[in-house]
């Protein structure tokens, strides 16, 4: 039975084992490779996407749960918060290896959508589920503050 949903504004339909994690549908079936595999058990956040506007770990989200939902991946991320976050990320060269950064950016964008001017504590709480093994955390924190300032205008 095909499962239908929207990804980055496009209607998509896949016919796969309904237990398949959304992560592997995005990557293996739809070739949206910006969303990464890091742990498979929702511990690292590398696979973070937006599902109906909320962050979600695609590695533990069976595709059956995505029926009818609206999914955004790093490839389709847009809007003022996203633009501000990505610009801030580039401006201070946040990424090192870069592998976790799609997930970091998805979570950071969601944070700014909910809290316009997050404190350090807000940032720590929101970003706690996103591991960066290169430990770019100092710059992640800085870039989120910078993006918030940009959005304030």
């Amino acid at each position, binding site marked *: 039975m095909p499962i239908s949903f929207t990804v980055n504004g496009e209607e998509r339909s896949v016919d796969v084992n309904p237990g398949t*994690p959304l992560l592997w549908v995005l990557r293996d079936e739809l070739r949206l490779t910006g969303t990464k595999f890091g742990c498979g058990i929702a511990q690292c956040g590398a696979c973070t996407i937006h599902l109906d506007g909320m962050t979600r770990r695609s590695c533990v989200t069976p595709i059956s749960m995505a029926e009818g939902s609206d999914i955004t991946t790093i490839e389709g991320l847009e809007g003022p918060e996203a633009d501000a976050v990505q610009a801030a990320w580039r401006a201070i060269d946040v990424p090192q290896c870069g592998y976790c950064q799609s997930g970091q950016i998805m979570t950071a964008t969601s944070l700014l959508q909910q809290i316009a001017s997050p404190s350090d504590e807000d940032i720590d709480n929101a970003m706690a589920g996103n591991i960066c093994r290169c430990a770019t*955390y100092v710059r992640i924190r800085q870039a989120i503050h910078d993006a918030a300032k940009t959005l304030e205008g």
Partner: protein
Amino acid sequence: MNIQTSRRRFLTGLIIAVALPGLARAQQKSGAAAFFNELPGGSDEMSANAFIRVAPDNTVTVLIKHIEFGQGPYTGLTTLVAEEMDADWSQMRAAAAPADVELYANLAMGMQGTGGSTAMANSFMQMRKAGAGARAMLVAAAAERFGVPVDQITVEKGIVKAGDQSASFGELAEAAARQTAPEDPPVKDPGDFTLIGTDLPKVDSSAKTDGSALFTLDVYRDGMLTVVVAHPPKFGARVASYDDSAAMQVQGVRKVAQIPSGVAVYADNTFAALKGRDALTVEWDESEAETRSTETMIAEWTSAAKAGGEWEVEKSGDVDAALTGAEIVESTYVFPYLAHGPMEPLDAVVELRDDEAEIWMGSQMQTGDQAIFAKILGVDKVDLHTMLAGGSFGRRATPDCHLAAEAAEIAKTNGKGAIKLMWTREDDMQGGYYRPLTVHHIRAALNEQGGIEAWDHGIAAQSVVIGTPFEQMLQGGPDFTAFEGANELRYKTANHRLRWAKMDSPVPTLWWRSVGHTHTGFAVECFIDELLEKSGKDPVEGRLALLGEEQAREKAVLTRVAEMADQSGDFGYGVAVVKSFGTYVAQIAEIEDRGGVPHARRVWCAVDCGTAVNPNVIRAQMEGGIGYGISAALHSEVTFDEGGLIRQRNWDSYRILRISEMPSIEVAILPSTAEPTGVGEPGTPPIAPAIANGWRRMTGTALRRLPIIPVA
């Protein structure tokens, strides 16, 4: 480090790409320096030449012989070329060089590979010469075109000028390609640098911000099968038998096959491969397996460290005599096995054709991996694409090339076609190649002035090198990676001895970001701090007094960090200084008690890495190195149950640093005109001892076993 250079290595010819084929996707926002996910153009053409391509579209592509996994060689090496060419930064592109030992060897290693924080150090003159040669060819072409002598030509920001005539690099590219490459072109005087020493934006930040940067896991080939391998649950175990009947029932599983490293499951997609592996039943032969528990091993290692060990690495004076009858201070330090845990678990894509193979892999030792593929697959031609890798920290630099071997065995068993080998996080955590379990034992005696009369140091650890293809580099000597940083002791001691006890286990071990310094830095810096405290000395002044003339650079970073640090708070402050890979780093950590364990609030860091090519990248590496070190100090260890089963499986049980535990960090780079040294590793060693020293000075409790917060 002695870097051998020859004219051959300074090949400076230009390849002029007349058109960039469609497969080359420059990862850039318009008008910014960038990199290519795949090298543009045909590989035959490239293998004839070296480092620089100038295209008619006015882009300059630098072929980078080192893998990029976060430490910045794509940006740094491109900077060296741009500097000598007088190019504009926005026209620069980086791309991974193909695997080719003749053209792209690491001059510090003699093979193509990255490690020991050598990427910048070994490339500094080579890439500058390449850039200078390219510039000379463009200038010669312009001289012909403008009808003026070369000495009337100037180059600035990618524009070649004489009087009112001018041309871009792109316009001159075809004519420049016909010029003779100078054999040994002069390079700039450092005083004339305009790009080196500035915070140029990194070439890879943009693509790593919008999801377009491609890693090995992102490579998909037509008809490709995804493969996961059931590996032994204990080190040294082997497959005895297996039953694949349930696995073969999983929809999408195509094949199950035994390979030397385990049982491989081939499937149409990742989920099917994982389900298939879950459904496998494997009986393991554990007759050769490591079955000791971690506690048993630590007890054995500790006895060996105390006994001293069979390798007397260094000896000056008479330690035994000096210790006899003296009041002895002694400490034992215990360091666990550590997984590197790169965010992208190991992976490789192999496409096997009739008589050749094409590989996509985050290869850290390209020509070693290439040779393994050729041998196992039985093909002469192996094109290896070095992909961006999601971290490594040493993990991808395995002397035995085990990942390449596993991928090759999988591809060989499959026959023609493409396979992707994927390790899961569990494969990574339980897959070995750990930082060795290490125990230090130090005994010392002080004289009445607080000077060190004797320092007797024993280290027990497995060798990372002995028993591997790299063993020959030791020339029969001890494995320096087990004790580097404890030898050539920087503090003045009247009598000194260093011994290494080589321990044995089937657990495979490997260099882990900063290698021996991960533990020697801790043992030496914690022990000296205790000695200083005992004799009532200030941690900075006391260290300075024990450092000699030849430690001028250690003294300078220590002095600088002490100036930077605001130690006025009601917190603990800890100091450490470590030289590793030719780079000097001193750190002071501000420590608070967070629920009975130390939390670093702020860290000050002073670094001397010679010429600072890109200060922003250096600061980033210090920040990241500190975070990596705190992970290990606080949380990380791999442990075995009695019987040898590995306790850790994933990030839930092998804990690493999260953002809430990250200190704020201030970095100062000491001005220097010395040749650049590496920064990928040297930020890591000082932080754990700085934290431990701050904690001990605050609470009176010495921390002598890592991690500080053991696994529950």
